[in-house]
């Protein structure tokens, strides 16, 4: 659907990005600020023109169309509601501009108000609404003309945590109910993981990996993706043996680990392996292959994060569930053994 490049002067904001977004999909562009995700979104909306490349919608190029000619609507970061109009006038604006009659617009506005749970608020001025309510109006306004694609530019970033979490669920529900393709932009990895069907992780104008939340979390394509999504341990080592999709890696601290390895990676030499904190296990056995010293223990309610240091000085985090059976996290300063179960570690492309 998309194959574009955008330059501002010599700065490549979007660098040869090719994406294929499926109909009825909740697709997220995830990346740190300045990675080009908003620029990409603005190109889809028509506010920016690609320096080169194509944007296809249903196999037809829309690159030459003005924003008001594209069946695509946007929910803006700060909502951009029209302050001189009521809630209903805001929601009906798109339909009115499309030349629909008042009799046609009114029931759709009512339906939209119901959809975003703002029944009866139609006559209120938008300036009198709370942040969460404005957010809903912005959604309803963008959904009312039934666009083929809805673009959402960090729409939840201005809301507080509680509201943000309930809006995440709300958005997911709206997407399922309307069947409209959502393209969501965010720098919040948690937001991306909880809502998306598929995620494209971006950095410096490039797309590094596209996949489902599970894919990206469990099989990050490279160091950036692994580090950006969730917490991760990076361990240095060298391959001693590579057999098919599994490599035996000898860590610098001396232990051997079996790690999954994607095809096409070099089968010898120094590598970095990645292990998620919840996959590591602390053993009381001090004679384990991998030994570490406990530095800090942070209590998080459902789990505790144990910060450790390996013999070679590299830091490791282990996430332990707090159960009621009496298992407690180790004391600070204790020497403990670490075990890495087979199949949880992965060799990274550097």
């Amino acid at each position, binding site marked *: 659907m998309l194959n574009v490049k955008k330059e501002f002067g010599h700065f490549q904001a979007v660098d040869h990005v090719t994406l294929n977004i499926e109909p009825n999909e909740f697709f997220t562009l995830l990346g740190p600020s300045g990675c080009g995700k908003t620029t990409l979104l603005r190109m889809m909306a028509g506010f920016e023109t690609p320096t080169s490349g194509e944007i296809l919608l249903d196999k037809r190029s829309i690159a030459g169309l003005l*924003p008001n000619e594209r069946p695509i609507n946007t929910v803006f970061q700060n909502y951009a509601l029209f302050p001189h109009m009521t809630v209903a006038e805001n929601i009906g604006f798109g339909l009115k501009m499309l030349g629909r009659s008042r009799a046609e617009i009114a029931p759709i506005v009512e339906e939209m108000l119901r959809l975003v749970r703002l029944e009866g608020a139609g006559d209120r001025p938008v300036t009198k609404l709370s942040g969460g309510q404005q957010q809903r109006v912005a959604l309803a306004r963008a959904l009312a003309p039934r666009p083929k694609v809805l673009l959402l530019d960090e729409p939840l970033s201005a809301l507080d945590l509680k509201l943000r979490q309930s809006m995440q669920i709300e958005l997911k529900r709206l997407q399922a109910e309307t069947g409209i393709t959502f393209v969501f932009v965010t720098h919040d990895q948690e937001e991306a993981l909880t809502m998306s069907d598929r995620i494209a992780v971006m950095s410096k104008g490039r797309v590094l990996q596209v996949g489902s939340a599970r894919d990206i979390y469990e099989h990050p394509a490279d160091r950036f993706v692994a580090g950006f999504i969730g917490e991760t341990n990076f361990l240095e080592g060298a391959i001693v043996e590579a057999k098919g999709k599994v490599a035996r890696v000898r860590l610098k601290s001396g232990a051997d680990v079996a790690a999954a390895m994607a095809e096409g990676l070099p089968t010898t030499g120094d590598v970095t392996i990645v292990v998620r904190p919840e996959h590591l296990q602390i053993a009381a056995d001090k004679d384990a292959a991998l030994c570490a010293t406990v530095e800090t223990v942070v209590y998080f309610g459902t789990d505790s994060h144990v910060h450790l240091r390996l013999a070679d000085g590299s830091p490791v985090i282990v996430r332990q569930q707090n159960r009621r059976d009496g298992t407690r996290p180790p004391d600070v300063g204790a020497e403990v053994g670490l075990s890495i179960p087979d199949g949880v570690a992965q060799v990274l492309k550097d």
Partner: protein
Amino acid sequence: MAEIKDMQRLDDARRRLLTLPAVLFILAFAALPLLVVLAYSFMKPATYGGVEWQLSADAYVGFLFQKDIFDDSLTFSSEYLLIFARTFLFGIATTVVCLLIGFPTAYYMATRPPQTRNWWVLLITIPFWSNLLVRTIAVMFIIRDEGLINTVLLSLGVVDQPVTMIFTDFAILLGLFYSFLPFMILPVYASLEKLDFRLVEAGYDLYASRFQVLTRIIIPLTWPGIATGSLLVFIPSFGAYVTPLLLGGGRHLMIGDLIALQFGSSRNWPLGSAFSMILMAFVMLALFFQIRKNAGGVSHG
């Protein structure tokens, strides 16, 4: 609690005291002269200027009627009324032209990068550095028969007779437009600069054409600036004196000239005062509508 309230009251009283110099000044130099003019308009003219201290509504009657010299009968006379109407039309025309030219200019300024905007504001205000009279005479030099435009046109052979521009209605309109354009540009610019251009994008995103974005989003949101600018242009051009006198050649009177005439060679101070009062009533009416319109609409600071 009572103490806090007392303190607040004291504080308020002190603050009110701060406005005293301004209030006194306005009373002495604005309200008092106005009262004098109001009083004069209800008196009889003295033979050599000034007024006779006799109550009379003659001046106001004289605005609409002419007194027969022999039998004192009143006949309707539209002369002054026509001058009023003419002036009113000039005021409206100046406002419309200023808006048509000023709005796009202000829009251009407001869409420049922030660093360059102040330079544009400076450029717009430069004409204010010189006197209105000087600027008006400068316009004369440009448009008179031997002026810049005609010299160029003649030497290029576009025309073989100078195009008469000076001492026409066109000249008056041009002069008024030139004098008061900044009064339109600056308030419109101020409100355009505050306009959130993401709203414009939202408009395009929701299928509005350029024209619809202008009429349904930009104009409603900058209406306070447009209204202020229009008043700031309309009021002074309605009462303009120098510009119509110099550029119109005094052939067609405007109210400003008419009032000056009554205090000058006609020596009819009451009539001049009455004209001033009528002029002011019109302006107040315009202000009143502006305030009511602003209060009625949604405020968007």
